[in-house]
């Protein structure tokens, strides 16, 4: 099955640029038996590409994302960036960014304090002026110019997610992971923000892995879409190609595009 997927997908550049996940397996220990959340997944994201990881809830897509971030230990497999194995590298040294579903902004820091948090140790964090400049630049990018001094508790849901995006992008991570970043918002806001996120990712030239259960969102944001069902990646293709050729019946059923 996995080999089929690889055959139909546009081949990622194998010279080693970008993210490569090899045979990733994530297991959750239970009282009696452990559950297999991610089942031997191999996946690549090219530098500069946005890949959507699309699947129903409970399919293991968030677990895979967290394993890439280093937040979930893997029972097997490897995570590589530019050909370098990161599997044993702790979270804070991977140089990846993660945007949580509900933002997880630090309630005790203002907007600017949140956005500046990740700048320590980067070229933007050298001086107070360079930090402030970067924060302003990021807030401008997400359309929240002048929000720096605002307290987190005064933000609306959509504004909070914009701040979370700015915070994740500020240190210029080599890979941005987005975990259902819009699913806690209402429908209208979600559609509006999906377009914005796509624009921001393009403008920043970010390599991104975008987890979602909403195919409209996936199609709006991503260059390629990987469909994940029951812990396995079943199909990887560009949006147009995916709609033209659904692959198997289960994928078609999930996408709601079956005959």
């Amino acid at each position, binding site marked *: 099955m996995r080999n089929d997927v690889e055959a139909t997908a546009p081949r990622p550049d194998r010279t080693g640029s970008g993210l490569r996940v090899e045979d990733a397996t994530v297991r959750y*220990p239970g009282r009696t038996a452990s559950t297999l959340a991610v089942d031997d997944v191999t996946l690549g994201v090219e530098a500069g590409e946005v890949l959507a990881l699309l699947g129903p809830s409970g399919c293991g897509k968030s677990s895979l994302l967290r394993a890439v*971030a280093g*937040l979930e*230990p893997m029972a097997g497999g490897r995570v590589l960036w530019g050909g370098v194995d990161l599997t044993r590298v*702790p*979270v*804070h*040294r991977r*140089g*990846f*960014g*993660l945007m*949580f579903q509900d933002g*997880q902004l*630090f*309630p*005790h820091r203002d907007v600017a304090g949140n956005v500046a*948090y*990740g700048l*320590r*140790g*980067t070229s933007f964090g050298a001086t107070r002026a360079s930090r402030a400049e970067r924060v302003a630049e990021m807030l401008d990018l997400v359309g929240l110019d002048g929000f720096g001094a605002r307290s987190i508790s005064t933000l609306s849901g959509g504004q909070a997610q914009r701040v979370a995006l700015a*915070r*994740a992008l500020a*240190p210029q991570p080599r890979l941005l*992971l987005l975990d259902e970043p819009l699913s806690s918002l209402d429908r209208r806001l979600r559609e509006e923000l999906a377009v914005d996120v796509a624009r921001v990712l393009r403008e920043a030239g970010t390599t991104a892995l975008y987890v979602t259960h909403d195919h409209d969102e996936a199609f709006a944001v991503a260059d390629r879409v990987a469909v994940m069902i029951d812990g396995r990646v079943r199909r990887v293709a560009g949006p147009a190609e995916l709609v033209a050729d659904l692959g198997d019946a289960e994928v078609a059923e999930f996408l709601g595009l079956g005959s």
Partner: protein
Amino acid sequence: MWTLAVVVPLVFLAAFFAYPVAAIVARGFVANGALDLGGFADVLGDPRTWRVVAHTLEQAVAGTVLAVVLAVPGAYVLYRCSWPGRGLVRGLVAVPFVLPSVVVGVAFRALLASHGPLGFLGLDRSFPAIVAALVFFNYGLAVRLIGTVWERLDPRTEQAARTLGASPARAFLTVTLPALGPAIASAASLVFLFCATAFAVVLVLGGQRYATVEVEIWLRTTQFLDLRTASVLSVIQLVVVAVALWVSARARSRGERALRLVEAGRAVRPLRPLRSPVDAVTAALTALVVALVALPLLTLVVRSFRRDGAWTLANYAALSGTGRAGGGGSALTVSVWAAAQNSLRIAVDATLLALVVGITLSLVLSRRPRRPFARRAIGALDSAVMLPLGVSAVTVGFGFLIALDRPPLDLRSSLVLIPIAQAMVAIPLVVRTILPVLRAIDPRLRQAAAVLGAAPGRVLATVDLPLALRSIGLAAGFAFAVSLGEFGATSFLARPDRPTLPVVIFRLLGRPGEGNYEMAVAASVVLAVVVGVVMTTAERLRPAGTGEL
């Protein structure tokens, strides 16, 4: 780093809790190197033992029932209803719980003594006096525990019952009361625990006549030097406390089961004593209880300014002296002010110790590791830490006395013993204050920091610390206040030349001599004021929405 964080508090608890307790058990069960149940049989065969146990249970049950029954209407008026001045009365009701128990004893003696405001009742040094003092002590706690749940109970459930034809009384009995059940049970078991381990209040008000297990342990140790009987009694007390703790934990976990809760304040409505008979009755009852809570405090203050029927500051002036004893000697070895200085110095040390151990423990216990082994280890540590929670101060003091005066740990003559004992009493409070706040931090907030490049140390400094800072301040205040007023453990350990303020107050009470009693009253006011100031300062730091202790 985590290894160190686990090992340091564990070593501390092992040396200053497990080891003394083991020493107590050994004293009771082992004689001449062999298992000997003779001591146990002797003590259990002595009718005095059963009288003491019966006294303990009678006092604790009576105190608990009365405190909780009065606390239900109190919680309604003070938490479910709003009215001008509510905050002030809530503050007043919370005062007794933080008062040093010696002070409460002195206040009730002042109230009930033959020349006191309620002297005509003839209740001085009686069973009702002890129960009244226990209720005085714990009423505020029970009101708070029940009230903080009640103020968040969704009123629509009761309204649904009313629309189904239930009378207000039936709606209360069938909907509200069952919902409050776990909170009431939890409050009752905690109050029972405090009543059953009450020491100084009973010692001051009841003396030998109404001795409880705690008092009996103290009497056996300090008056009769009968360490074996004291050990057996300590084991009995440990069992009583363990059972009460277990019941309390069960009640608490039941209380965490789904209740329909709304944001605090949304369910609160104005108190209408003129229109609603329920409001009128509960408000009147609560007003009466509040007056009875205020009375001993007022009497104490007034009495401290009176001598020989006239107003005077002489009682306070006398605090720089050492009191009087028969034959022209003095009642004390040092002046009251010197003792107060000792108390402050010891309290600073005890607070630092309690904070270091308590914060480290809270950090470890707040983590949820993924490995099943580590998870189980934390669960075990959790219960191990909560064990000293209920162990009475008297047991701690007694255990230190018999365990730490010989190798391998010979600290008897060392000045660190009292701060360590007081820290042992304060640590559970510190953990209980900080741990819930740390546990409430979404683990993903720490993950967000890590993903942004923060190493574990920076996560601790920029996420955990700022969010827990207020609770750490509150815990420091708790620990300081507890240490200042601590009497149970200190009474076993204080050296005659370096007494603390509560010890001096107790000594003054026991020495007949002109002006000694008045000095004790004035010193009690001083102690109460210092503790009160520390607590009000700390209370301002209380994080919103944490009600527990």
